[in-house]
C-alpha cells in the first residue's frame, strides 16, 4: 500500500468504542475503513471477483480468466513495499570496493618473535592470513598458529570488560585505581612495583619499559614464558661469553644434525627454515643432490619423521652423544665414562660431518641444556660452518641476560618476602603455567594490587585484583622483531571489538603518566625518534606497507667460541638405564595453552598421533608393553612427590623408557572451547627441570579416557600409496614411482575436452614436513566448521585437506611418511556418476565441483570416493555465532546440515584470477592462482596451475619422472598427483645402530 491517506486515530478509537462484544480487527486501516483498505481486501481476497459475471461467462472467458489468474498469481509478491530510505555510501571509504578484498601487512607474534603476514580484509573484516613474501621469517608462508590466529580475533569467549576481583567493572574505575596506586609509587621510586611480561622483542615496549624503570628506579621487570629459550641463550653465553642469537642458513647446508630440535615446525624462524631446508631437499626437476638430515631426539617430532636417520634416545643421552660427536671431530671435550652404544651410527655421522665442512650444521633444540648448545656452537665452528650455514647476531630479545626461570623465581621470592605490593602482568597466564615449585598462584594472592592484561579472563585473571581485556594483535598497534631482528610495525585491521586497555603499550604509557595514550601514537613516536630516515612520513608509510622496517635485520657478528670454557664443561653421568623419564613439550596445536580456546587448533590433528582435543601420555610400544598399558588407559605419573593423571597413547618411534606429555591442556578457565580438556602437566613441571624429569613412576589406574584421533590405521597394508626411494635408487631409476603404474584403460566414453584452462596440483612428498599449516589455511579460507570431540570420535571431522601419516618398518623405530590428501579432482570421478541429483559435476576446466544447494545428502559420492576426501555435514556444524560469522570468507558458501562438501581447489581464487585476467584481456598467468594450502605451505610442497600451459610449473612437475597418481589403477585419472618421496640415507651407515 504505497500511497495511503493519513489515518485518523481519533476516529478509529471512537469506532472501536462503539463496537459491541469482542471484535477482531486486522489492522488500523481496517478499523478506519479507509478506501485503500477496502480496495486492498478486494484485490487480495476477491470474494466476488469483479469480472465474474455469471450470465456472460462462457467457456472461453472462463479459460481466459483462469489463465490470467494463474499467470498473475506470482505477481502477488510484487505488492510494493513501504519506502524505507537507507543512506548509501555517498562518499565511500577510500580504497573499499564492495566485493574486492584488501590486504594489509602486519605481523603475528608468537613466543615473542614476529612472523610477517598479509591479512585479507573484506569490507573491514579481516578474514584470512597469508605470509608476507617480503618478510624474512615468512617468505609468503605461515605456520598453523598464524593461520588460526584470525579465529582468536573473533573468539566470543575473549574477555570483554574489565574485572575487579572477578566482578564486572569499567575502564574508568580501573584507571582511577591505577593512578591511585601509582601515586604512592611515584613517591617511593617504584619500590614494590613489579612488571611481568612474556618474551619481549618489541622495540617500542623495550623503550617504554626502560623509561618506566627510569621513572620508578626501584621497580623491576620480570619475564617468563613456559616455552622458554633460556638454554639457547645460556648456551651462547657459555660459548661466546655473552648472549648471541643464532641463525641457520639451511639453503647452504648439505648435512643437518638436529639435536632434540623441531626447527622445521617450531621456534623462531621455523617457517623460514622449512623453506630453506626444502630447497635443498627437493629433487624434482632432475636434481641429483639433496641434503641429508640426522635427528637425535627424545620425543617424536616432524623433524625426526622426515629425517634420513633418526635416533630416538632418552633426553639426557643427547648430551653424551654430542660430546662423543665433538670428540670425534677433534674437540677435546669430556665424555662420559660409559659409552651408550650407537657407535657405528655416530661414526658415520661424524664422517659425514667431516666431509662436509662448511656445508653442514648442528642445530640444538631449546629443550636441551645449555651445555649441548655450547657444544653445538663449538662443533659448528670446528666444521667451519660459521659464516656459511650458521651466523650470529646480537640478541633479538630485549634484556635476555637473566634466564626467565630465574626471573620468575626472583619475583616469587620477592613476593614471599613481602617486597611486592603492585604487580602488573602483561600477557601470559602464569597462574596456570608457572612451574609448580614456585607456587605462583599462592604468591600472587598476597600481592595487594595486581593487574592482569590479557586476551582472556583466564586463571591468572581470576587471581588478580584487576583484569583488563587486551586487544588482539589485529586490533592494535605494536611492533616486534623476527628471528633475525627484522622489525615489523604491527598495524591493526579492525577497531577493538571489546573495550579495554588495548595493549601493553597503552598500559605502560598510562603508568608513565600519560592521560589518554593511544598505541598508534606510542609506536609512531618511538619510530619517529629511532628511525634513521630523514623523511619519517615516507619511512612510516613504506614500513607499514611492506610489513617490515627496511634494513632492520641485525647484522651478523664475528664471534669466536671460547673453547676452553666449552671443554671445561663437565660431563654428567647418565641416569640409570632403567629409570623412567618424563619429557615435556609444548603442544603442537595449543602451544603452552594460549591457543586452548581456538577451535581450529583444538581440532587440528596433532602430527604423528593425529590426536585432537586432548593431550596424552605418549609412550613407545615397548614401554607400554613393559607396564601393560593400552591406548586410553589413564595412568598416574608421579615423581618427587608430585602426581599427574593422563591417558596413554602408544606412539611408535617414541624412545623407550620415556614418556612425553604436552603443555597447554587441563585449562580451568580457557573458555567454552578450551576449558577442561586433557590434563595439565604443570603439577609435575618444576623450574629446575622444565623439559624432562627423571625417575618417575607410571602406574595404571584402571580408568579409561576416550581420545579422539583422526587416523586409526597406520600401515599402508602393502599398498603403493606413498612411493619412496633413496637418492641412489632414484638416480639409478628416476621413474621408480611410476614404472609399475598401469596404463590408462580404454573407455567407451569420450574423454573430457578442455579448451581453456585445466587445473592440476602436485604435492612433493619429499618436502612435506607434516606441519599442518595447510590444514588450518584451508579451514580459514573455506569456512570449514569444527565439529567437536564427540563428532571426531564418531569419525566426522571436516578438514578438506588431511595429512595422512603412515608407518613403515619396525614398531620401535619406524619410518614415518606424510601424505597430504585433498580432493583429487579425478577426470573419471567416481563421485560424479553416482549422485542422483547432479550435485557434484565436472566443470569445463576439469574441476570436480560440488553444488551445495543442489545436494540432498545421499552420501553415495563419499562411499564411491576411493580417497575418502568428501566431508558431510551430519549435523548442523556451522555456527551462527555473530562474531565467528564475521570471520567467514564471503566468497565461499557456508554449508548447512545435510550437505556434502570437499576441497574445491579454492575455486573462488580461480574465479578472482579469471576476473582480473579478463578485465585486462589476457590469460591467467602461471602462479597467479595460489590455493590456500599452497600459499601457507612453508616448504612449498604444493604447486598448483594450468596443465594446458606447457610452460607452467605444474606442467613441468607432471612430466617429472617422480610424478605419480594415487590409486590410478582404478582409472580415476586424478588431477592431484604426488612427487614421490626421495630420501638421502647415508649408505655407509648401519641403521640398526
Amino acid at each position, binding site marked *: 500500500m504505497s500511497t495511503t491517506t493519513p489515518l485518523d486515530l481519533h476516529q478509529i478509537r471512537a469506532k472501536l468504542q462503539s463496537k459491541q462484544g469482542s471484535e477482531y480487527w486486522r489492522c488500523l486501516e481496517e478499523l478506519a475503513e479507509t478506501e485503500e483498505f477496502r480496495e486492498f481486501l478486494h484485490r487480495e481476497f476477491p470474494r466476488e471477483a469483479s469480472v465474474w459475471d455469471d450470465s456472460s461467462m462462457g467457456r472461453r472467458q472462463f479459460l481466459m480468466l483462469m489463465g490470467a489468474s494463474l499467470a498473475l498469481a506470482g505477481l502477488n509478491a510484487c505488492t510494493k513495499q513501504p519506502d524505507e530510505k537507507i543512506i548509501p555510501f555517498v562518499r565511500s571509504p577510500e580504497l573499499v570496493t564492495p566485493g574486492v578484498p584488501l590486504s594489509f601487512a602486519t605481523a603475528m607474534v608468537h613466543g615473542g618473535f614476529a612472523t610477517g603476514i598479509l591479512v585479507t580484509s573484506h569490507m573491514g573484516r579481516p578474514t584470512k592470513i597469508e605470509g608476507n613474501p617480503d618478510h624474512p621469517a615468512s617468505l609468503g608462508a605461515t605456520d598453523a598458529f598464524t593461520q588460526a590466529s584470525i579465529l582468536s580475533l573473533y573468539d566470543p569467549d575473549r574477555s570483554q570488560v574489565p574485572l575487579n576481583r572477578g566482578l564486572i567493572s569499567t575502564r574508568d574505575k580501573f584507571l582511577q585505581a591505577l593512578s591511585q596506586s601509582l601515586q604512592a609509587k611515584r613517591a617511593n621510586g617504584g619500590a614494590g612495583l613489579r612488571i611481568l611480561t612474556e618474551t619481549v622483542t618489541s622495540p617500542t615496549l623495550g623503550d617504554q619499559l626502560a623509561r618506566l624503570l627510569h621513572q620508578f628506579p626501584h621497580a623491576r621487570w620480570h619475564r617468563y614464558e613456559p616455552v622458554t629459550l633460556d638454554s639457547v641463550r645460556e648456551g651462547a653465553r657459555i660459548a661466546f661469553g655473552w648472549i648471541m642469537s643464532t641463525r641457520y642458513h639451511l639453503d647452504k647446508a648439505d648435512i643437518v644434525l638436529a639435536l632434540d630440535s623441531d626447527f622445521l615446525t617450531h621456534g623462531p624462524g621455523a617457517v623460514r627454515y622449512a623453506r630453506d631446508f626444502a630447497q635443498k631437499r627437493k629433487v624434482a626437476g632432475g636434481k641429483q643432490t639433496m641434503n641429508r638430515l640426522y635427528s637425535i631426539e627424545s620425543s617424536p617430532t616432524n623433524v625426526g619423521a622426515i629425517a634420513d636417520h633418526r635416533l630416538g634416545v632418552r633426553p639426557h643421552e643427547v648430551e653424551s652423544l654430542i660430546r662423543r660427536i665433538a670428540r670425534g671431530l677433534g674437540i677435546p671435550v669430556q665424555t662420559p665414562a660409559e659409552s651408550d652404544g650407537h657407535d657405528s651410527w655416530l661414526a658415520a655421522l661424524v664422517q659425514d660431518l667431516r666431509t662436509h665442512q662448511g656445508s653442514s650444521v648442528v642445530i640444538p633444540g631449546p629443550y636441551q641444556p645449555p651445555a649441548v648448545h655450547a657444544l653445538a656452537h663449538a662443533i659448528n665452528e670446528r666444521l667451519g660452518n660459521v659464516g656459511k650455514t650458521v651466523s650470529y647476531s646480537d640478541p633479538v630479545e630485549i634484556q635476555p641476560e637473566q634466564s626467565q626461570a630465574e626471573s620468575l623465581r626472583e619475583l616469587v621470592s620477592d613476593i614471599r618476602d613481602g617486597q611486592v605490593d603492585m604487580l602488573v602482568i602483561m600477557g601470559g597466564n602464569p597462574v596456570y603455567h608457572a612451574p609448580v615449585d614456585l607456587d605462583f598462584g599462592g604468591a600472587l594472592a598476597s600481592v595487594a594490587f595486581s593487574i592482569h592484561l590479557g586476551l582472556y579472563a583466564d586463571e591468572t585473571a581470576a587471581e588478580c585484583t584487576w583484569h583488563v581485556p587486551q586487544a588482539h594483535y589485529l586490533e592494535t598497534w605494536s611492533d616486534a622483531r623476527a628471528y633475525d631482528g627484522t622489525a615489523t610495525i604491527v598495524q591493526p585491521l579492525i577497531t577493538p571489538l571489546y573495550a579495554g586497555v588495548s595493549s601493553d603499550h597503552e598500559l605502560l604509557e598510562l603508568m608513565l603518566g600519560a592521560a589518554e595514550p593511544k598505541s598508534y601514537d606510542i609506536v609512531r613516536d618511538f619510530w619517529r625518534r629511532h628511525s634513521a630516515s630523514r623523511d619519517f612520513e615516507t619511512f612510516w608509510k613504506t614500513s607499514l606497507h611492506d610489513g617490515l622496517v627496511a634494513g632492520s635485520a641485525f647484522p651478523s657478528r664475528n664471534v669466536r667460541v671460547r673453547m676452553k670454557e666449552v671443554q671445561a664443561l663437565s660431563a654428567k653421568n647418565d641416569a640409570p638405564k632403567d629409570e623412567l623419564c618424563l619429557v615435556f613439550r609444548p603442544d603442537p596445536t595449543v602451544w603452552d595453552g594460549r591457543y586452548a580456546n581456538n577451535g581450529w587448533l583444538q581440532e587440528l590433528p596433532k602430527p604423528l598421533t593425529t590426536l585432537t582435543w586432548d593431550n596424552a601420555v605418549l609412550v613407545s610400544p615397548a614401554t607400554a608393553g613393559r607396564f601393560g598399558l593400552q591406548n586410553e588407559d589413564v595412568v598416574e605419573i608421579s615423581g618427587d612427590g608430585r602426581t599427574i593423571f593422563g591417558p596413554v597413547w602408544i606412539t611408535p618411534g617414541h624412545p623407550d623408557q620415556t614418556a612425553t606429555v604436552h603443555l597447554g591442556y587441563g585449562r580451568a578457565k580457557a573458555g567454552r572451547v578450551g576449558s577442561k580438556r586433557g590434563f595439565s602437566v604443570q603439577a609435575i613441571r618444576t623450574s629446575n627441570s622444565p623439559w624432562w624429569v627423571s625417575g618417575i613412576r607410571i602406574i595404571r589406574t584402571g580408568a579409561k579416557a576416550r581420545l579422539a584421533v583422526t*587416523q*586409526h*590405521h*597406520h*600401515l*599402508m*597394508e*602393502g*599398498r603403493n*600409496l606413498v612411493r619412496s626411494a633413496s637418492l641412489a635408487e632414484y638416480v639409478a631409476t628416476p621413474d621408480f614411482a611410476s614404472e609399475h603404474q598401469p596404463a590408462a584403460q580404454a573407455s567407451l566414453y569420450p574423454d573430457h575436452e578442455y579448451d581453456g584452462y585445466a587445473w592440476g596440483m602436485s604435492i612433493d612428498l619429499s618436502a612435506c614436513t607434516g606441519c599442518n599449516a595447510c590444514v588450518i589455511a584451508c579451514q580459514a579460507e573455506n569456512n570449514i566448521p569444527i565439529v567437536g570431540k564427540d*563428532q571426531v570420535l*564418531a*569419525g*566426522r571431522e571436516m578438514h578438506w585437506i*588431511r595429512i*595422512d*601419516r*603412515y608407518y613403515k618398518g619396525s614398531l620401535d623405530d619406524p619410518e614415518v611418511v606424510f*601424505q597430504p*590428501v585433498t580432493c583429487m579432482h579425478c577426470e573419471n570421478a*567416481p563421485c560424479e*556418476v*553416482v*549422485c*542422483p*541429483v*547432479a550435485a557434484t559435476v565436472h566443470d569445463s576446466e576439469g574441476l570436480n565441483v560440488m553444488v551445495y544447494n*543442489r*545436494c*540432498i*545428502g*545421499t*552420501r*553415495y559420492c*563419499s*562411499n*564411491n570416493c*576411493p*580417497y*575418502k576426501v*568428501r*566431508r*558431510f*555435514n*551430519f*549435523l*548442523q556444524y556451522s555456527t551462527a555465532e555473530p562474531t565467528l560469522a564475521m570471520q567467514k570468507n564471503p566468497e565461499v558458501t557456508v554449508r548447512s*546440515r*545435510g*550437505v*556434502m562438501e570437499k576441497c574445491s581447489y579454492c575455486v573462488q581464487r580461480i574465479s578472482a584470477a579469471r576476473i582480473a585476467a579478463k578485465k585486462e584481456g589476457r590469460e591467467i598467468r602461471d602462479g597467479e592462482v595460489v590455493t590456500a594450502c599452497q600459499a601457507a605451505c612453508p616448504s612449498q610442497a604444493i604447486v598448483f596451475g594450468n596443465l594446458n600451459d606447457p610452460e607452467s610449473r605444474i606442467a613441468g612437475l607432471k612430466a617429472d619422472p617422480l610424478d605419480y597418481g*594415487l*590409486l590410478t589403477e*582404478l582409472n*580415476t585419472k586424478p588431477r592431484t598427483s604426488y612427487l614421490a618421496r626421495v630420501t638421502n640415507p647415508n649408505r655407509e651407515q648401519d641403521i640398526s645402530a
Partner: protein
Amino acid sequence: MKRENTVDTVETAPLIGHGQTYGTITDKITADVLERKTPRGMLVGLAIAFVLTMVLFISIGWLMIKGVGIWGINIPVAWGFAIINLVWWIGIGHAGTLISAILLLLNQHWRNSINRFAEAMTLFAVGCAALFPLLHLGRPWVFYWIIPLPDTMALWPQFRSPLTWDVFAITTYFTVSFMFWFVGLVPDLATMRDTAKKKWMKIVYGVLAMGWRGSARHWHRYEMAYLLLAGLATPLVISVHSVISFDFSVSVLPGWHATIFPPYFVAGAIYSGFAMVLCLVIPVRKVYGLQDFVTDRHMDYMAKVMLATGLIVAYGYAMEAFFAWYSGNEFEKYMMFNRTQGPYGFIYWGLLLTNIAIPQLLWIGRIRKNMVWLFLISITINIGMWLERFVIVVTSLHRDFLPSSWDMYYPTIWDWATYIGTIGLFLCLMFLFIRLMPMISIFELRQLLPWRGK
C-alpha cells in the same frame, strides 16, 4: 473357472482340508473378520506393535530436528542401518509378487491360499523399505529433486546414478504390487459386503468392492486384468532387487563392485521373503485355525523354495570369495580377508551360520513339517539376511582403499529405534490387515476344491 488345472501327482498331502466346501470356506474366512471377537493375543500384539510404531515416529521426529548425525554413520561408513534396512525390507517384499505373479503364471495353484497374505506382506514391507531412502537423506525435505519433475531451472535427476533407478524401481514395484493386491481383493470385498450384517460395514466394503456383482463379464475382465498384472509384475520381481543391487555393484568399492550382485540379490530377496511369509503364517494359521486352508503341504513347498534360494545365495557367497582370490586384486583380497578376520568378522561368520548352515536342516522332511522348527529356521534366515546386508554395506565401506581413512561404524540407539520401529509399523499394518480384510483369498481357495486330495 476354465483355467486348466495341472495335477500334482507327487504330493499326497492335501492343499485344502477335507470336509471344506464352498460354503464353509466363505463362512470361515469372512467370520474371522466380521464376527469373531478379536483374540486377546492379537490385541496385545497390536498394542506392542503400536508402541514400536510410535518409537519409529519419535525417531523420525528427532531425525528431522537434528539430522542424520544422530545415527552412527560417518566418513567412510556413510551408509549404515538405513540402507541395510532398505535392502532387507525390499528383499522381504519379494515373496508376495513372486507367489502372486510368477506362481500364477506357472499355474502353481497351491499359491492360492497364501498369496493374499504374502501380497499384503509385500506391500507393507515395501512401504517400510521406502521410508529409508527418504529418511537417510541429509536434506529429506528436498527428496523430490530425485524425481524427474519439470522445473523452472530445467534440472533433471542424474540418470546415470543407480539411486535414480531405485526411485523408479521401488515406486513401480509398490504401485504394481498394490494394484495386484487390490484387484485380487475385489471379488472377496464383494463377498464381505454381502456377508456383513452391520450397515457401515456394508457401506465400507461396498465402496471398496467397486460394484462387483460376480457376473460372468466381471469374471472375464477380472481374469484378464489379473493375468496382465501378473505379467507386468513378473519382471519386477527380478528387476527391483537387481536395481537395488546396482547401488552397490555400480560403485568402485571392493565388496560392492561385483557382477554377481543382481542374481545373488534376487535369490536372497526371495529367500528372505519366503522366510518372512513363514514367520507370519505359522502363528496366524495356528491362532485362526487355518490349517485346512494353509496346509502342511504349503509349508513344505515354501520350505523347499527357501532351501533352493538359500543354496543360490550360498553360491553367491562362494563366488565372492573365489573371485576375491582369483582376481588377484589386492583390494579385493583384503576385502575378503577383512570380512572374515576383520573387526566385523563375527558378523560374517554369523551370516554363514544363520543363512547357510542352519537352513540345511530343511533337507530333513520331518523338520520341514515341524512348525516350531520351521518357524525358528525362518526367523534365523531373516536375521541372516539382515547380517548379509550389514556385511555388504558396512564391512565393505569401513576399510576401503586408503588405510588412513579406515574407521569403525557403531550403530546408535537411534539406528536401532528406527529399525525396530519399522518392524513395529510392519506388524501393526499386518495386524490391521488380518483384522479388517479377508486374509485368505476366498474365491481362489474355492478353486482348489475340485481337485483337492488328488
